[in-house]
């Protein structure tokens, strides 16, 4: 818990310094949030290189907004990154015809997996399964699950990122969870039937 508080304090400090156009603080903020932002974009667009490009643009745009004093200093910087990321994804969808979701984690790096290659393949197989379940959901369900259960944002941050009230977000998450469980059940049933055959 103390480590969480420290992390929280560090984030707040870096965030406020970045909003005051502190370049070094912004670089530190980038290091803190780049993984989450990349992951969020990657699960949405399904392509590694595109996710990298979009992620880079997110931080560049955020810095430009800070320089132009377009950022409300009372707002959370993390929420700003997610907002920009969402808008960039929408632009990406508009420009690209291929909106196929992520199907394979073949070229994806996994964090600190100290296991044999066989284990890694199995882990990746699990990841692909859950991703497949996520991809079967509506975009807004997928979004809220990623933010809450994968990137572990709090309700305030999600509310600012998605522009919705906390109450509606809780309802949305509940429905998203139900939908995910439905998909999981369908997938398990389908596997059973396959195995039975």
């Amino acid at each position: 818990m103390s480590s969480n508080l420290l992390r929280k304090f560090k984030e707040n400090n870096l965030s406020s310094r970045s909003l005051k156009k502190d370049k070094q603080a912004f670089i530190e903020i980038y290091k803190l949030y780049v993984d989450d932002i990349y992951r969020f974009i990657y699960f949405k667009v399904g392509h590694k290189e595109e996710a990298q490009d979009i992620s880079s643009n997110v931080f560049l745009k955020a810095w430009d907004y800070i320089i132009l004093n377009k950022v409300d200093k009372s707002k959370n910087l993390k929420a700003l990154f997610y907002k920009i990321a969402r808008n960039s994804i929408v632009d990406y969808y508009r420009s690209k015809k291929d909106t196929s979701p992520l199907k394979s984690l073949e070229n994806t790096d996994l964090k600190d997996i100290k296991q044999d290659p066989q284990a890694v393949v199995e882990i990746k197989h699990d990841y692909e399964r859950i991703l497949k379940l996520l991809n079967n959901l509506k975009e807004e369900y997928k979004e809220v699950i990623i933010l809450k259960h994968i990137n572990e944002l709090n309700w305030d941050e999600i509310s600012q990122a998605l522009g919705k009230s906390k109450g509606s977000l809780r309802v949305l998450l509940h429905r998203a969870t139900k939908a995910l469980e439905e998909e999981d059940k369908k997938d398990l049933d389908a596997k059973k039937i396959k195995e039975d055959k």
Partner: protein
Amino acid sequence: MKKHLLSQLHNLKDIEPDKQWKAESQEFLRTHISEGVKSGVFSKVMVWIKDFAKVSSQPAFALSAFVLILITGAFFSNSVLSEAQPNDSLYIARIISEKAQLNMTFNKENRDKLSAQFATNHAKDITNLMNNPEFHEEEGSEDKLANLSEDFNNEINSAKESINNINEREKETYNYNNSEDNINDSSGTNNSELNSDGLNEDGSEADDGVIFSADTKKDDQGLEINVKDNEGVDDNVDTDSNETDSNETDTATSTNEDVVEDDKDLREDSKDINADKNEDSSGDTNIEEENASSTLNELQSITNEVNKEGGDVDETTKALDDAQKLFNEEKYQEALEKLNEVENMLESVSSEINEENSVE
């Protein structure tokens, strides 16, 4: 949510971006941030423009900006439109801008002076136009001539009116100042010793320091200008303004004559006081004598001022009359010269006004 699903979702957190890409992206961001300083000036300008646009959308700011533009436009357009001649299409715009300028002048004296200057300028422009042979060769010039002559007379009357307003205001100021001084000089008289008839105990009139109450048909405020006559004259806006001008001149002259009469009365009173001096006690007589002589001096100074002011009014009005006569006789060049004289006189009047205002 079911636990296995939740754990699988949490495990997705292990997916991270390529380390090489992270390093390259970080370096690129650092470069972009550093370069951003150079473009900051342009960005600041854009930010300022956008902030200004936000502020200007507010109703209060928009209204004040609109009023400021109107005022600026009125003044600026006046300088641009000042060259417009009576037969130009922009002449009406010039008149409107001058009226706007007059309305924005809150000081009455400056407004009258400005009004007189504008009227004189209009008269000069009309005279210039009449003096231009090309104008007479244009089609429909006869109708225009009649209209211009009427306009000229109206401008002359307007200039005279403004000059008279200045003069009247000056006189009122002198009278007010003078009456205050007279009240302050009445310290030698003890009014509580007056009998039931308002006279002193010895029967002489109570000398409260006001010299105009004796036998001059004037009130105790000093010189009384015959306002009714002036107003009646100003209402008569005729093309033949000679009668008007002579009445105004007579009024100014009559004012001077009244002042001279007062002067005579005061001298007589002064003599009476001297004659009674030997009979009265020395203290009261000396005080009365001092009062009389001081008020005599003040009256003399007022007479001089009024004569001077009256003389200034006379000269300016006379010059306007002469200009009008010359204009009617179609001697446009001479009329122009007279109007130039009027302009110079107005300049001297305005400099006096400015001096008085600075002293106050």
